């Protein structure tokens, strides 16, 4: 029997008993609909993370912290060391990484592969004010040289500019008294800060951009290097020298052309002298791992639905074999090999799988695109560019293929039964 006839027969047989086929297909549709949607969520969020990582830039920057010694994890108290400076201000609560001192920055700079080292200056501002307007509480975001922000207006920070530059989040534009995003560009804002000795001081900066929130920050004031230094200095008045020159973390730069293996090797060299290094992509990778885990669990539920649908296929085809006993017997009497009989029935199963998965995936794409559009306009307006459910043709192809494979496996039981049928018994069957 020719392959085209086997497929044609299988399709004809599937459509012969429409109600039964439809019910079996519905079960598969439910499974593949769920599977397509859940994997779509994974695809959507991961695509957003990847896009953010790419747009942030700073591929050649690694944030370095001191490795927390294992002993510190235990309840045992640690002996006081008068020479060990405490971290400046800004406690992150809970476990605290040991600060990096100025001397240690020099050690880091000597590590092969490190091009430059800059300390991360942590600044806690009190408020931001435009002219003599209302003072608003403001957070000063960390910023790594080489990053780029999502901007609604203006331009990126001049990292090495001598001028104090700042970007303000788009949500501050109206409260600070600007008519539009563009109106804020070029104006001067005052940032209030309290020094370690308790005196309140201010620092002024020029607004060069209006930022949009995202994984890269942008939800807070973002200063350039000159402004960071100015704010840090203002904040550190009254601190001891040792405290002032020790930092919770540092940013090191490496060769932008470094391969993944070279980056891993650099991390290993840093680890050898007691530091943890993480690139921007590593930091966002934590989100990715979490999302992948959630998606995996959701996919597990969808897989259970598909397993149930597989039994539906077995049942449908067993009924079909029973109904067509005489027809199968006739074909076998006329010289149809058992292999061809098996082929017709397993193709029928695969066709049912194809129908169910294609319809399910199609519905999921429609439903997902609608939902995603609605959410982007309401719940997720703060994360522009995030399409919560996205569809990857390869992933959908894999889903359809997997469902067809499950259908084939389910179809083997009835197909073997049909192939083994004895023509004489089958022709006598009433």
């Amino acid at each position, binding site marked *: *029997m*020719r392959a085209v*006839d086997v497929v044609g027969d299988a399709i*004809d047989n599937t459509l*012969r008993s429409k109600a039964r086929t439809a019910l079996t297909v519905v079960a598969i549709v439910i499974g593949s609909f769920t599977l397509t949607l859940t994997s779509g969520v994974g695809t959507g969020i991961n695509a957003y993370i990847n896009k953010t990582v790419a747009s942030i830039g700073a591929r050649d920057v690694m944030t370095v912290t001191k490795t927390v010694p294992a002993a510190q994890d235990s309840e045992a108290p640690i002996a006081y060391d008068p020479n060990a400076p405490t971290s400046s201000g800004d406690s992150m609560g809970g476990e605290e990484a040991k600060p990096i001192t100025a001397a240690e920055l020099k050690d880091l700079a000597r590590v092969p592969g490190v091009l430059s080292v800059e300390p991360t200056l942590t600044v806690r501002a009190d408020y931001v004010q435009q002219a003599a307007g209302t003072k608003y509480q403001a957070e000063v975001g960390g910023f790594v040289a080489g990053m780029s922000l999502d901007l609604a207006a203006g331009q990126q920070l001049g990292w090495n500019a001598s001028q104090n530059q700042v970007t303000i989040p788009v949500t501050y534009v109206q409260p600070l008294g600007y008519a539009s995003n563009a109106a804020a560009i070029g104006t001067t804002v005052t940032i209030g800060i309290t020094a370690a000795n308790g005196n309140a001081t201010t620092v002024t900066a020029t607004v060069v951009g209006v930022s949009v929130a995202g994984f890269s920050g942008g939800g807070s004031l973002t200063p350039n290097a000159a402004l960071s230094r100015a704010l840090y200095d203002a904040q550190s008045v009254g601190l001891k020298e040792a405290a002032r020159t020790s930092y919770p973390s540092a940013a090191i730069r490496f060769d932008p052309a470094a391969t993944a293996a070279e980056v891993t090797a650099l991390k290993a060299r840093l680890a050898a002298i007691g530091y943890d290094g993480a690139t921007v992509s590593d930091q966002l990778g934590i989100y990715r791992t979490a999302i992948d885990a959630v998606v995996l669990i959701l996919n597990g539920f969808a897989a259970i639905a598909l397993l149930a649908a597989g039994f539906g296929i077995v049942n449908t085809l067993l009924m079909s074999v029973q109904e067509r006993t*005489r*027809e199968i017997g*006739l*074909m076998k*009497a*006329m*010289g*149809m*090999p058992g292999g*061809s009989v098996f082929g017709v029935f397993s193709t029928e199963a695969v066709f049912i799988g194809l129908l169910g998965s294609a319809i399910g995936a199609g519905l999921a794409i429609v439903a997902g695109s609608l939902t995603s559009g609605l959410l982007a306009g309401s719940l997720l307006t703060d994360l522009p560019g995030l399409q919560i459910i996205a569809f990857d043709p390869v992933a959908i192809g894999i889903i359809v293929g997997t469902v067809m494979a499950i259908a084939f496996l389910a179809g083997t039981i009835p197909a073997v039964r049909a192939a083994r049928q004895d*023509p*004489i018994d089958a*022709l006598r069957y009433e």
Partner: protein
Amino acid sequence: MPVPILAACDVHKSYGRGATRFDALRGVSLEIAQGESVAIIGKSGSGKSTLMHLLALLDKPTEGAVELSGHDAAGLSSAVLNRTRNSTFGFVFQQFFLNPGSSVLDNVTLPLRIAGVPRAERNRRGMAALAQLELESKAKNRATDLSGGQKQRVVIARALVNDPSVIFADEPTGNLDTATGAVVEDILLELNRTRGITLIVVTHDEDLANRCDRRVYIRDGLIVDDLTSSAIAAANAEVAA
């Protein structure tokens, strides 16, 4: 004497085992020459259908051998057996066994589809077979929409479509009224006479059997009589004299 196209040599066939064992055939020998028309006659349960199934290579004997053109069928692979049933044999059944959902043409071309003949060629040969039985106009009809006589003619067209050398007919007129049955008999015997197709008819209908060259009577799994028309004619002449 030429090699018979089909031969049974001391064939036994039993079903079941132990206390439930049933011997359907208990040592049957039969040779059928190319171009003969043979009626196998017996009551139900006599073993006549079993004998036909063995000759048609649908089943294997428990003991003894079935020979196809002088070769023991037990030595043939299942692929060869399938090919033989597909292209050398044609089957006509009492219950027609037409697929109700398919068109008449698709029913007729089923053996060609099994053989892997391309669609255009299948349809051409199917129409030719239907034309021989004056059913071309029904080609597109559903098989269920036909009368009993038309259905049996479709079945004969299906048996003919592969240009077989043997046609097995199991009670071909059993489901037909006398007039339609006679037409079907005419068609089958005409094929035997004009095209030299060997005809093996299983029946309990004496009228049909009397129109065949040869009658093989079976009772309780044994051949009780094997008469050719010439012998019958001679016997009749004797009675008359």
